[in-house]
């Protein structure tokens, strides 16, 4: 991974971002944060609907129709800006424990969201009438929200990978 990071750092797109890092990095990170906000807003609303704390005059399907596209659109935006950050600062990103744990949790969060959308579409009646009232489903809603909170924490911790002690592969300067 270190070798790959060093190779990536020498590629033209990476060199461009590095040479103009005074504005490229803050700009990419700011767009990334806007994307995070849109994800968190959307996830919060869908989860609150499952918990019965908001959007209660709308069906579950109506709520996911409203926020699903924003959620997936924002996740794509995060993927693009995230990739640009990896290209721009490969060693800083790839040689950390935080980054890889974050990627694992992003994968889990995304899979849960996709699976949820699919089963809701296939068994709409069952979801609206029964599943949404189940305790286990409400617990899942809270859990997935916490997964995204952890993703934010880990994203920030990429800059502070030393908090993981010996788990961090980053060189200690």
């Amino acid at each position: 991974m270190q070798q790959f990071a060093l190779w990536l750092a020498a590629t033209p797109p990476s060199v461009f971002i590095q040479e103009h890092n005074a504005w490229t990095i803050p700009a990419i990170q700011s767009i990334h944060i806007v994307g995070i906000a849109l994800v968190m807003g959307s996830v919060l609303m869908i989860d609150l609907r499952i918990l019965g704390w908001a959007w209660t005059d709308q069906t579950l399907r109506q709520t996911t129709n409203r926020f699903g596209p924003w959620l997936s659109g924002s996740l794509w935006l995060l993927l693009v800006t995230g990739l640009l950050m990896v290209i721009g600062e490969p060693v800083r990103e790839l040689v950390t424990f935080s980054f890889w744990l974050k990627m694992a949790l992003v994968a889990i969060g995304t899979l849960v969201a996709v699976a949820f959308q699919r089963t809701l579409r296939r068994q709409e009646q069952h979801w609206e009438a029964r599943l949404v009232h189940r305790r286990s489903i409400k617990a899942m809603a809270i859990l997935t929200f916490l997964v995204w909170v952890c993703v934010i924490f880990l994203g920030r911790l990429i800059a502070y990978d030393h908090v993981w002690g010996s788990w961090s592969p980053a060189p200690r300067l």
Partner: protein
Amino acid sequence: MLEWLQQSSVAVQIRDSLYSFPLLESIHVVGLALVFGTIAILDLRLLGLASTNRAVSRILADLLTWTWVAFVVTAATGGLMFITNAVVYFNNTFFRAKMILLVLAGLNMLVFELTARKTMARWDTERSAPPIGKVVATLSLLIWVGVIVAGRVIGFTATRAAAPVDEAAPDVDFEDLLGLPK
């Protein structure tokens, strides 16, 4: 005053801890994501761009508590980060810009309360808010994006001023640090 804040035992404890500042920053990001995420939902509704099948008052009722709780969390963690290095932050251009933008966001909200909000019963279920409401919503989105950008830039400008990178180590050999075979 700023010096006193910086010397306070809370500030010293945060500075001395390996974990406090990263933790505060992380909570700050979660908080601001929920602030902007929920505000954007309302602004887009006012502009007639999303959730148009729901009354504005219902959306306000669903969101407001969350927005305020998230705002308090974000402000509290922001305040704690500020006192760890108060003098530097206070003199940082982007920190000042961010504070001005936050004041503008508040004033913008006040304009909404004093104008469109008063007549809301009349346009509550309309597709979009009256012109003044749309102006407020557009400004709100722009101001909050500005807050995010300024906030992110503080991290690049203030910390550097606070702890200048040691110029004595310009020829760090990263391959060596990573323990790669030459």
